[in-house]
């Protein structure tokens, strides 16, 4: 059992829900990412999705396009991103999953990135442009190393697909709550409970819900039906907001984020 599986099991036994936070690695700087990771765990985050920026992210809305672009301009690479994980491991057992478009991983080499991610202390991969049908190689590489490979499900997935995706997904199952790209929304999709119900009918694995979750109130609503609540763009927006408001040091940005992250954790 790896850190992700253990975390969800403990949450379930305690009757609690997991807070999953996405950040773009290297935004606004790699040093900030290094400083942020252990803090997130301290403030109540149960799992970190460490986003590898990609030049052409088709599943991302304006917020993550922006942060990815900024990180790339600042010179972040896959190798540098891996270097942010070992320092966290000295202080925390918070699971870390690499969230990446497939191309940067292919260029690195799938076996090589799996080996290096494992050595750095990462716990798995989430590759949004690799659906089940293209995932055989990544599945065997991850399973040989006890790394989770999380597959995504969507409102458009028929129940028979949900069953097959759930079977293949390890660690947890990601449910995309909205049609469209990532990004903060004002409301949670109306069909969420029904679709999660369908998913529960075909699997016992933990289900985490993302896309469009931005406020503690959203998090509370989603937590009623899911095992985990994923917040991404809204967190990136908070970082942007801090910088726009004149935060001129990593500490100042962290100070701006802390109450927000704590409020999400408390909402669960």
């Amino acid at each position, binding site marked *: 059992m790896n850190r992700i599986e253990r975390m969800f099991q403990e949450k379930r036994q305690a009757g609690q829900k997991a807070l999953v936070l996405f950040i773009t690695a290297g935004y606004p700087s790699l040093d900030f990412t290094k400083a942020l990771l252990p803090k997130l765990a301290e403030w109540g985050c149960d799992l970190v999705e460490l986003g590898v920026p*990609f030049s052409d992210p088709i599943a991302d809305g304006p917020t993550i396009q922006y942060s990815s672009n900024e990180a*790339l301009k600042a010179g972040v690479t896959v190798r540098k991103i891996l270097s942010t994980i070992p320092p966290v491991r000295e202080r925390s057992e918070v699971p870390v999953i690499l969230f990446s478009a497939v191309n940067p991983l*292919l260029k*690195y080499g799938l076996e090589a990135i799996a080996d290096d991610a494992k050595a750095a202390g990462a716990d798995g991969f989430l590759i949004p442009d690799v659906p089940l049908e293209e995932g055989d190689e990544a599945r065997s590489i991850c399973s040989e190393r006890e790394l989770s490979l999380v597959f*995504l499900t969507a409102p458009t997935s028929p129940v028979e697909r949900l069953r097959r995706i759930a079977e293949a997904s390890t660690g947890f199952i990601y449910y995309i709550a909205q049609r469209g790209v990532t990004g903060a929304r004002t409301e949670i999709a109306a069909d969420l409970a029904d679709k999660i119900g369908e998913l529960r009918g075909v699997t016992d694995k933990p289900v985490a819900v993302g896309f469009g979750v931005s406020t503690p109130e959203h998090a509370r609503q989603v937590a009623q039906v899911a095992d985990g609540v994923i917040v991404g763009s809204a967190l990136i927006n908070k970082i942007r907001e801090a910088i726009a408001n004149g935060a001129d040091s990593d500490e100042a940005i962290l100070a701006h984020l802390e109450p927000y992250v704590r409020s999400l954790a408390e909402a669960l």
Partner: protein
Amino acid sequence: MTLVPGAQRPDTTGHYGEFGGRFVPETLFQALIDLEREYKAMADDADFQEELTALLTQYVGRPTPLYFARRLSETAGNGMRLYLKREDLCHTGAHKINNTLGQALLAKRLGKPRVIAETGAGQHGVATATACALLGLECEVFMGVEDIERQKPNVLRMQLLGAKVTPVTSGTSTLKDATNEALRDWMARVDDTHYIIGSVVGPHPFPMIVRDFQSVIGREARAQILEAEGRLPDALIACVGGGSNSLGLFHPFYDDADVKFFGVEAEGEGLHTGKHAVAIGDASSQPGVFHGSRSFVLQTDDGQIVPAHSISAGLDYPGVGPEHSFYARTGRARYMPVTDERALIGVKETCVQEGIIPALETAHALYYAVHELPKQLPPDSVVILCFSGRGDKDVQTYQRCFQK
């Protein structure tokens, strides 16, 4: 060379050897399955085939002529006989409409009232807007602001045809970014929207569908050359951006092992400058996953996509269709580069020697056919070039370049 006669391409999972596939977010996956199912049903449906053929004949103006270019052949020398497959004479001025009419009919069959498209040079946007006007579909075209600037006349044409043109400012504001934006829109509105992709790129089944609709070019050319010369050609040549006009010409000749295929990529300011759109034919070319399929693509050592560069908006694309990558890998086709500067020579020669103003895209193939191909083929070779589009959209660029 590996020839696989009669083999099914792509295979049942949408792969061409190691290339192709369906690398898309889960939100779109079921739409791709539905699309493939309806496409196959439609391909076997005699009524549909009849409807499409009638439109291609009466509306598009097919078959397009196969024209023997006497003066360009003389310039080429070595006894070469150069034939131009005149896709520039299609309604809307390029081959793009062969695909958009087929896919617009498919959209109706899928019950999707709204169509979106990406466009670079604007030809695919115009062809999509045209098909949507004809069939009563709502149409929105995504176009990079950079391309809106350099292809103004096509923007106005799309708007006249009732389409909404949405400017794209993300990334490099060109074709690749317009494609990203179209994919994002499709994810949001997949239930009521069909995405008419403009080339043999994207996730399966798009490369196959676009190839099949464009294959009318090669089927006609095959019959026409047999009529004109009493034999098959020695070579086929066409420009390659995503690669739809070239694949349309090549595909029906795939099993004719003696017919050589030449794809011409845009070399921009030159391979050594890094400012080019040569996805396949560079020594450092590497496959990657981009816009939903695995194929050759311009990328950095860290797997980030590198923006392409070409004077021609239609070839200004860092990727290429997966079937072209398969052709390159197996040696079925060769891919050669032509710079911006040489393409302009091709424009000028074709204007003054044949009285035809070619599109910038087509001019890349024209230059190579006239100046390089004769050296590589035996004397008296017969060559068919896909004359993919007319140059009206480029006259402002020509004026600027030729006044220098």
